[in-house]
C-alpha cells in the first residue's frame, strides 16, 4: 500500500545519517503549530508514529517528545487545518 509514512521515509533518507534524536528539543522544535488555526481534531496526535504529541487542555497537540520527530511529514500532510509546518522541510 502506498501508505504515506513509508513513502516519506524514502525522501527523508538523506537525513538519516545525522543523529536524528539530537536535532530537536523544546528550544528547537521540529514543527511550528498555528494554534489559532488548530481545531483539535486529534489526527496528528493519534497518528504520529513517534508519539511526539500529547493533547493539551483544549485537545490541541503539545509537542511532548520533540526529539523523537523523524520529520516523516504525516502530521503536516494530514492536518486538515493546515496548522502544522515543518521547520526543516
Amino acid at each position, binding site marked *: *500500500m*502506498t*501508505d*504515506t509514512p513509508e513513502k516519506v521515509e524514502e525522501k527523508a533518507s538523506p537525513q538519516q545519517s545525522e543523529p536524528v534524536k539530537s536535532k530537536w528539543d523544546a528550544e528547537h522544535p521540529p514543527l511550528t503549530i498555528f494554534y489559532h488555526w488548530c481545531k483539535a481534531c486529534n489526527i496528528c496526535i493519534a497518528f504520529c508514529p513517534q508519539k511526539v504529541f500529547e493533547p493539551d487542555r483544549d485537545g490541541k497537540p503539545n509537542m511532548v517528545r520533540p526529539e523523537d520527530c523523524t520529520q516523516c511529514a504525516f502530521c503536516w500532510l*494530514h*492536518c*486538515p487545518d493546515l496548522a502544522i*509546518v515543518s*521547520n526543516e522541510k
Partner: protein
Amino acid sequence: MQTKSDIVHHYLRPKKKFPHVWCSGCGLGVILGSLIRSIDALQMPKDDIVVCSGIGCSSRLPVYIDFNTLHTTHGRAIAFATGVKFSNPRLKVIVVTGDGDCLAIGGNHFIHACRRNIDITVILVNNWIYGMTGGQFSPTTPTGKIGSTAPYGNIEQTFDPTKLAIAAGAAYVARSTVYHVDQLDKMIKGGLEKKGFSVVEVISNCHTYFGRLNKEGDAVEMLTWMKAHAMPIQAARKLPPEKMEGKFVTGLLHDEEKQEYCDRYAQLSEDLMKKTEARP
C-alpha cells in the same frame, strides 16, 4: 517560514483568512493541501488556474485559494467549467465537487463532460453524505447506512463514480483517500497533467454526519478505516475476489488517450477559417 511544507500557505487567499469553515478534522482541509501541492509541483501559474465548484462543504474549497475561483450553483460546476474552459482553452480548469453535487443533482453534467472529454480535472470529494445540509444520504451512501433522510437505513444501491466516469468516456479516472495523501497528490497531479477529462475521486471523512449517524467514530477512526480498507489497484489485481471483500480499490483506474474537445473544435474552426480566407 520558507520550508517546503509551508508551500500551502502561499496559495491561500491573502484577504480571506483561515481558519476555514469546515468541522474539526474534516478531510476537506487535507484535500485542499493536496491540491495546492500538486499544482505547485507542476509549476502552474496561479493566474491561469480556474477552480470551479458547486454548493456543499466540498464546494467551499475554492474560496480559500488564490486562483480564479467560481463558486456556482448546486450541481452545475462542471457545466460552468465547460463554459470557462471552452471560452478560453488556455486556462487550466479544475472542479471541486461533492458526491451530492457531482452525482446527485449534477450527474448529467458529469457524464456529458466525460463524454465530451473536455480538458477539465474534477476532484470529486466522496464523503458518502450531504454534509452541508446536515447528513442526508447521497448516491454513494452505502446501502443500509443511516442518513437523516434514511433514518431506517438507506435502501438504495450506490453509484461507483469511477465506473460511471469510465462508461461515460472520461480519459483519466483515479481514486484515493484523505489518509493516503502521497497517493492522492500523485493522482491529482496525474489528473492535472492529463489532456482530457480527468476525475479523481477522493474518499473523505464527514464524521460530523456520516460518522456520527453511523457510529463510525471521529476523524481519527474514519481515517483508520480508510487505511484498513483501501487497496491499491496493483495489489488488488493480484488478489482473489474473496480477499477484496469489503475493500475498495485506489490508484489510477483508467487512462486513455483520445482527442480532447477544445482541441478538436479549434482544429475544425481553424480549417473553416482557412477555407473562408481562401475564398476570393
